[in-house]
């Protein structure tokens, strides 16, 4: 399966999961589907048959509200049966709306409150460095999440300790909960902020698989400093009426909206 196929499947699963369960955040998931597909399809060294393989690369979704995207990706990659995805957000399910690790092979860390993932990732990266291991730790954050001060504590720490095995990816779709990032708490000049804090910064189109492959793969491993990949994305990517719309941070696709979204995603091969 190509990473494009994987991304398309993840989007379709996510649409199905959020619509079936009536959950939010479809826009946030569609925004990162290509990043997840590239990570699990090609970049990360992981083994679905042995999710706790000690030498694996670690991935943390810090924007836990897009957890359905991670569940779908893991299922498609063989960590658990895709059939299980139907339980998402249902009574009695352990596939919670915000990503949880309990009982779900392949999920490293549970998140849901923003601003937690990068510190945990830094701890893992520090441990890897101490042990002289070569695996990577990759953490995916949202742009709005960068309002959280705790991230900037982690950013300072990771640069100070030269955690070159740590990669932060920012899903920079420029929309947060109520309105645009620019109108909430402006992040620009965003790349400069990361650089000023001592990180290498790469910028890429977050939906272009060729560019993602380079940025998330070999490029992010260069040097002693931790790397931040700012992925310019479109919230709701792949469904025309969801794209760049604040509404679809929370709205659930039902009825004709669901069918229309599904048709668009099926055509996006």
């Amino acid at each position, binding site marked *: 399966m190509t990473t494009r196929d994987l991304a398309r499947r993840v989007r379709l699963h996510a649409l199905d999961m959020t619509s079936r369960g009536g959950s939010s955040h479809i826009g946030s998931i569609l925004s990162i589907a290509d990043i997840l597909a590239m990570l699990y399809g090609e970049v990360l060294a992981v083994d679905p048959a042995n999710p706790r393989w000690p030498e694996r690369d670690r991935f943390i979704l810090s924007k836990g509200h897009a957890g359905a995207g991670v569940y779908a990706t893991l299922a498609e990659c063989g960590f658990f049966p895709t059939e299980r995805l139907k339980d998402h957000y249902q009574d009695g399910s352990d596939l919670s709306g915000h990503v949880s690790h309990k009982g779900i092979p392949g999920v490293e*860390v549970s998140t849901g409150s923003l601003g*937690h993932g990068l*510190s945990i990732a*830094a701890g893992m990266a*520090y*441990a890897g460095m*101490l042990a002289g291991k070569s695996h990577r730790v990759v953490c995916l954050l949202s742009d709005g999440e960068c309002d959280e001060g*705790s991230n900037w504590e982690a950013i300072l720490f990771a640069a100070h300790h030269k955690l070159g095995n740590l990669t932060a990816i920012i899903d920079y779709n420029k929309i947060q909960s109520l309105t645009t990032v620019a109108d909430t708490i402006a992040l620009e000049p965003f790349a400069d902020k990361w650089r000023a804090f001592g990180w290498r910064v790469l910028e890429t189109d977050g939906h272009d698989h060729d560019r993602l492959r380079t940025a998330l793969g070999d490029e992010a491993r260069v040097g002693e400093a931790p790397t931040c990949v700012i992925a310019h994305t479109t919230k709701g990517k792949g469904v025309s009426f969801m794209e760049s719309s604040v509404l679809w941070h929370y709205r659930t696709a039902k009825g004709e909206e669901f069918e229309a979204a599904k048709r668009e995603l099926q055509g996006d091969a």
Partner: protein
Amino acid sequence: MRDAFVARLTALAEDDPRLMLITGDLGFGVLTKFAERFPRQFINAGVAEQNMMGLATGLAMEGHVVFTYSIANFGTLRCLEQIRNDAAYHDANVKVVAVGGGFSYGALGISHHATEDLAILRALPAMTVVAPGDDWEAAEATEALVNTPGTAYLRLDRSSMDRAPEQGERFALGASRRVKEGAAATIISTGGMLGEALAAHETLASEGLLTRVLSLHTLSPIDSPAVIDACRTTGGLVTVEEHSVVGGLGSAVAEVCADAEVFPRAFKRIGLRAGFSSIVGGQQYLRTRYGIDAAAIVAAVRSIAGA
């Protein structure tokens, strides 16, 4: 207590490379030896407690046993959500250590009065909550926590009682210590209030009132059998804590009694009731000022005994 903790941790770190100590930029002169001897096992995370707790979780997930070190409320309340979601929910081997329990830093003002921490931390599922009563308990608790997987809170206070244990006595998390025996009442103390409890015991004994004294160093999980036995075999309970009466030791003991439907003949909670203290002062001064010292315990027992 702090020194007993650091000394035991240092001794254990020698043979256990899993052990790590992360400080939130505190412990001047106290952690220096550890840092110099074990540079690979020591991190100063800076003045950034939220990140410190996330780091601790990440390190623990990779196999380390991580002690975080801070004072008063900084290492607990400032990063409470990281303790809950990151460390505790992941059953991470993170031991949150706060020095300066209660009024240890009484003169520094309310930012440094750790007087609600026990209630808040014992409310978290999967948290072991320990407040040692003397130096021996602090050292033994440190070692026990290393050997007990999971997330824990170790509250140390400034009172330092170098009191030898009984011959052959062994420390166990979750088991209280019966340090004095008597039947007039049972004084149950947690943390450094053990010193006040023992002083009260001596005064009362000189009057012919013999009290049992329990050092309830582990607040969660609580030693229910010892509490129930005290209800059944002594004249009443007096709980003693350098902490708000809301949710702390007294509350925990009352929960045990009510759940078991075994009620003490009398029940008095000695703890803080006056709200935030804008008054400052030394630890002993504030204990007396707020009626949680040995004299208050003596009065409570006398009232139970009708003396």
